[in-house]
């Protein structure tokens, strides 16, 4: 692991540890799960330039599959997590074959359509096992020293998951594959003329994003010990879009910053403003028209400006002469 990566991981973990006493263990656990989901969404939207309005399908799949596994097959939480991730990934592999052939509005809407199908599937046709609208409770047995019923254990477990996901995605996005998906975002045709089968790499990204969202889903199920169709509600996708935009799309740091910002707004603003979603709409308009780079993007711009100024000063010799 490189020094910079280690520092980044420590800063992120430290940041969440710092806000925990101010907020609460429960809330910060929620925040961290949402940040994992936001990072998976950003891989598709920020890095590959494919806006999905149905990414919650994978979170819901992860939540339902791990929940059903715990309810009907085994109460081993680790196996449930693996099952949730694998099924979400497999679903990504299957529907990805159709979805990644599309771009733009078509990509967004096909995702939305599949999300709707998933939502109504758990709500009605599968209600015998999913208990429809009411959802179902789950109870995971302790795994070694990990007792998932304990809030504190869950908090630490989710924090470790967040750090691992960040590390994994950081490695992936800094690799030649990361350059490839960023290039696809800018000009997919050109990438084909560099000798790459863009369909395959878009599909891999889609499956990876789906699997990570599936992990967020399994953690949601374990955190609440309960699963209902809300985890797959298409309206929830707005949160991921908002998080990426406010944090700065195309950066994992941006996804984390945006994820926390969105969760703070959605958790605390309703205390003061009844129709807080209206505020969200205005904020979104502001971001689109005036704040396109997001929080992290602007911080990066300031950093680049300072660095450039330093270089120019050095080049013209300012500071070298002492009077």
């Amino acid at each position, binding site marked *: 692991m490189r020094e910079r990566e280690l520092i980044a991981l420590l800063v992120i973990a430290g940041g969440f540890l710092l806000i925990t006493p101010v907020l609460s263990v429960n809330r910060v656990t929620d925040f961290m799960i949402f940040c994992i989901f936001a990072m998976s969404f950003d891989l598709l939207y920020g890095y590959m330039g494919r806006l999905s309005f149905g990414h919650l399908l994978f979170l819901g799949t992860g939540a339902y599959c791990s929940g059903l596994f715990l309810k009907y097959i085994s109460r081993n939480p680790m196996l449930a997590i693996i099952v949730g991730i694998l099924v979400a990934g497999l679903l990504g592999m299957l529907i990805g074959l159709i979805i990644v052939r599309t771009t733009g509005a078509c990509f967004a809407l096909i995702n939305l359509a599949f999300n709707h199908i998933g939502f109504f599937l758990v709500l009605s046709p599968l209600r015998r096992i999913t208990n429809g609208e009411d959802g179902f409770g789950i109870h995971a047995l302790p795994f070694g020293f990990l007792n998932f019923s304990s809030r504190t254990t869950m908090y630490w477990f989710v924090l470790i998951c967040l750090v691992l996901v960040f590390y994994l995605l950081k490695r992936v996005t*800094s*690799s030649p594959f990361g350059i490839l998906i960023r290039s696809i975002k800018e000009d997919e045709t050109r990438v084909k003329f*560099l000798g790459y089968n863009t369909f395959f790499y878009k599909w891999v990204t889609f499956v990876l994003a789906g699997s990570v969202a599936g992990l967020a889903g399994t953690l949601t199920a374990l955190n609440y010990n309960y699963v209902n169709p809300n985890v797959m509600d298409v309206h929830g996708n707005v949160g991921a879009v908002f998080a990426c935009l406010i944090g700065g799309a195309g950066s994992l740091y941006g996804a984390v910053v945006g994820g926390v910002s969105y969760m703070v707004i959605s958790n605390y603003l309703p205390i003061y403003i009844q129709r807080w979603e209206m505020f969200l709409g205005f904020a979104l308009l502001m971001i689109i028209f005036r704040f396109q780079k997001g929080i992290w993007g602007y911080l990066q711009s300031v950093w680049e400006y300072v660095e450039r100024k330093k270089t120019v000063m050095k080049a013209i010799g300012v500071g070298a002469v002492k009077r």
Partner: protein
Amino acid sequence: MSDLISTQDLTKRFDGLVAVNQVNFSLQEGQVAGIIGPNGSGKTTLFNLLSGFFPPSAGRITFCGKDITKIPPHKRVGMGMARTFQLVSVFDSLTVWENLVLSTIRFKRDQQSVQSFFFAPARKRIVVDDCLKSLELVGLEKKASARTSELSYGEKRMLEIAIGLSLKPRVLLLDEPLSGLSDHEIGGVLDLIHRVKKNFALVIIEHKISKIVSVVKKLSVMNEGKILCEGDPEQVLRDPAVRECYWGKEEENCST
């Protein structure tokens, strides 16, 4: 000498318009050919057909003796066919050296393993060094870390050619490489072409006929989707049909 590329009755129709009409074009290994013609004569469409940008309506393309008519563009690149675009096509959001990573690592077996491609940092010394070598060739090594959006149009053109060269092609298709460039920049591109042309076959589409005549060994003139005339550049340019197509019908008696 056997043909590297050859087309047989290659045709492309867009609804009622026949953009390329039964073209039979051939290029030999190591040959430098030029394609000229007025706007809308089908030059770029021919390039798009050769490189697989879209499929032909009729006809056949062979490359190294193999029928590639239905082969997708990424596989054609793998076979040794690289191209540039009429409008410069580089990745503005990446840094200059990052633009060369994807084309460079195609030829590094150790970099193509799943672990290296998906998880190893692209900044690996070996990759960056190779990218810098390609940039040195076009004189952009000092701007390696700059954002591509900050380059001038001419520099972007050079970068695009560097990307094409780093694909180690058997044939490089250059679509109007001199368009939009200043005289100084044109000199740079022509100098680069002179330096690298011995390594592979080259096809150049260009409007500035006088600039490429000294570079190409074979010149084809296209008009209304057909090859009007082809052969030695000097002879082709003296052909009355070519002169008429380019400069209109010459008046026998010009009176003021």
